[in-house]
């Protein structure tokens, strides 16, 4: 079992781990020949976060070898990984490899930085303890399958959304509920009801990206939805899809979204909220996060 690679896009990897460490303490990292996949399954089973990075978006000289189809599964401490990547922020070069020190398997991050005093670089090594997972341990974990969403909407400016969300969360408390409604006419509503107040925010003129163009997503094909997208009637376009999510969970979703350049929210009426975060600067899907949240039935 071998893994080593040079990292050419440290900031992207740092942003990703920073976002995911908001969601959970430990994550499942799958390395294979084409991409790396970092998954967080928080306790409570209300949500799942799946991130996906193409090798060339972050790594160079990437090499992974293992007995099971060159796939390596690791359990990693996200905050520790994030912290160690931060010390690479001013690095001239950085590389990562799987190694073993003592009895503990480690992801070893080697960073070289030029210092002020000399041209001779300092070498920083950060060893992150990991657990190697057997293929059968992770074989039962799959991406959740959700029905084709009724609404697909681009989220508004993330800093603004975050500020408003924080207020909502404070209002309804940590175990409160926040309702999101969106339609295909570019409207997104956020609603909260607490003991004494009822608040609602509404954004208009948002983009509605077409559902289903993305190769990464697998939709459970429902009835009636075919290729008729652009022919949808005004009434259909104005119909709201509605989800109700835990306030704390929504706050996490927004924090994860803030790491991205472009975020699409898919609303499956009364079923689930799926947030699709494009991480890379070009906004392409070489580095993405999928955040699944189940909707509470109202």
């Amino acid at each position, binding site marked *: 079992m071998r893994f080593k690679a040079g990292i050419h896009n440290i900031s992207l990897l740092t942003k990703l781990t920073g976002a995911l460490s908001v969601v959970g303490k430990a994550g499942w990292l799958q390395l294979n020949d084409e991409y790396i996949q970092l998954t967080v399954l928080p306790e409570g089973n209300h949500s799942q976060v799946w991130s996906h990075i193409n090798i060339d978006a972050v790594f160079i000289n990437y090499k992974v070898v293992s007995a099971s189809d060159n796939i390596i599964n690791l359990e990693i401490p996200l905050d520790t990984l994030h912290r160690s990547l931060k010390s690479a922020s001013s690095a001239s070069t950085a590389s990562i490899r799987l190694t073993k020190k003592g009895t503990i398997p480690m992801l070893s991050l080697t960073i070289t930085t030029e210092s002020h005093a000399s041209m001779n670089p300092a*070498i920083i090594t950060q060893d992150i303890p990991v657990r190697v997972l057997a293929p059968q341990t992770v074989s039962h974990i799959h991406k959740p399958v959700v029905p084709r969403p009724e609404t697909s909407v681009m989220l508004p400016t993330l800093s603004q959304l975050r500020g408003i969300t924080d207020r909502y969360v404070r209002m309804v408390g940590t175990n409160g509920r926040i309702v999101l409604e969106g339609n295909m006419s570019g409207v997104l509503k956020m609603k909260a009801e607490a003991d004494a107040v009822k608040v609602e925010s509404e954004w208009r003129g948002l983009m509605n990206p077409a559902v289903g163009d993305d190769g990464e997503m697998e939709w459970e094909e429902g009835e009636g939805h075919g290729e008729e997208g652009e022919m949808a009637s005004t009434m259909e376009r104005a119909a709201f899809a509605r989800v109700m999510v835990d306030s704390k969970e929504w706050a996490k979703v927004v924090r994860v979204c803030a790491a991205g350049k472009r975020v699409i929210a898919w609303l499956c009426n009364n079923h689930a909220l799926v947030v699709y975060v494009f991480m890379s600067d070009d906004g392409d899907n070489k580095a993405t996060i999928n955040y699944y949240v189940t909707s509470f039935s109202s």
Partner: protein
Amino acid sequence: MSTLNITLSPLAVDRLYEALSCLAKFGDYVTLEARRNKLNLRTLNSTHSAHVLICVAGDTFCDAYNFVPDPSKLGDSPLFSSNGSQSSARVEEGAFVCKINVKALLPVFRGRYVQEAVNKERDESLVQGIEKCEISLHERENRVQCRLVIKLFCRHGVVKIFKLQYEEADIMYATFLKEWGVNRWTIRAGELKKWMEHFGPKAEHLDIGSEEDRANFTSFSEKIVDGAQILKHPLQTSIELDLIEFHEFQVARDTHIAINVKDFKAMVTHAGTLDQVQISAAYGEAGQPMQVTYDQNGMFCEFTLMTRKKGAAGPAGAGKAEPVAKIVMHRGTSAAAATSARAGSRETSAPPIKVQPQSSATRKVNTPTPGPSAGPLPSSASVHAAAPSIPPTASRAASSKSASGSAEMPPPPPPLRVTPRSGSVSAASDSSLSRGTPASARQPSLSLGFKGSLQPRPSQSLFLMDEDDDDDLFGPTPAGGVDDGIEGLLDDLDDDDVLGWDASLDSERVSFVELQERAVNADAGRKAAPAAEKQESEEGSYVGPTQRRDVVKGLFDD
């Protein structure tokens, strides 16, 4: 009654605050020691493995400094007055010593220095800002009313007055022999601080070593973890620096010492608050203390940190010889200190600390009589002097030249004033005992350069990884690996003793601050000492080990 009046500028208050918050990271109490020309702030951590001394000079740091010792304590029968509670430290110079909870002091000085704000009307932090600070001591015959009074003169004529209670205290100081400092390096504080930021908050120990032209700082943990706990294992960070980064770097080959990361970080953080200051570190082998010093504008800082060897005294060594505890017995003059330190000795090593005796029992400081006449010693006393009273094991008798020295032979020549009560054990003899190697080659009086480069240490297979990264092959479950790890630790223990103390006691104790002090005030106060010496020799009887006479003199004479 001692008189103490200090006036500080706002900037000095801010620097005092930084110093106190650094001290607060080590201990709960700070010991204030007022002298004629300076104020010493000291603290000792709970495991007695770190001692911090921050000295502010009366002239350069303070705007005004006036200390008049209590005349009644300056009398001509200085060391041992009839009043048993007088500490010799106080008597000798009349220094005023007290201890105060750091947490009580910190808020008094916090945020008092405010740089000129852009908008004076609206800047609320200006409310905190002061124009000057006066510290005075209100010591009364009636002990109930004794207070340390701190007056803060704020804007618009507002005066804030803090009256703090204090307790009587002993002076504790760290011993650091000049010859321990065979390895030394100097680096800019800001630079070191930048590197230390890479270490995670959970890092435990820091190994400092060097190879060829590079210095190496590596954090490590000795917790043995398995299963799901593996992910909680702290981040292991290693930083390799070119020696060019250092202003000076003279370290014997293959010297590795380990210290507590938090202590080191606390120190570096404080040094980083001083502008462009150079940090100097001096240390010997693992097991001897490390002394780190820096100074700027009338503030002298001296940190004495106990070092140890990586892998030693770890959990795996539980069933092994316990040199740590043994040394603690040697070092501690107060039983309590020894006990508490021993309790903590699994984690941190023995303290390089001696307590200035105060109780009537410990006041019976012994004459520097050579070993044999000294009578029965506590079993904790130094090895070579204690040999007659300790039933020597066969291996000890055979292997340790110095152990037999005091019984049948004259004491080892070079430490001319080997004093049993000094309670020091030589690094050489002690480590050779536990390893069973002949000590004949390693007398305690070994030349220093030799000592520094004496033992090439075997590679620490546990932590240093193989160079060839392509060979890191392993399966999901490291089956036999755990045993290997423990084995590695045990090997480490066998290899060298954890703590080794040098017995060359006649060498001068070098404290950075003391040197400063001597330079400033070389001629004063030499009178008390001879009398003390005489007094002391009459006392004759033997008590637990304590510091040497000349060490005492060096410390408290001005």
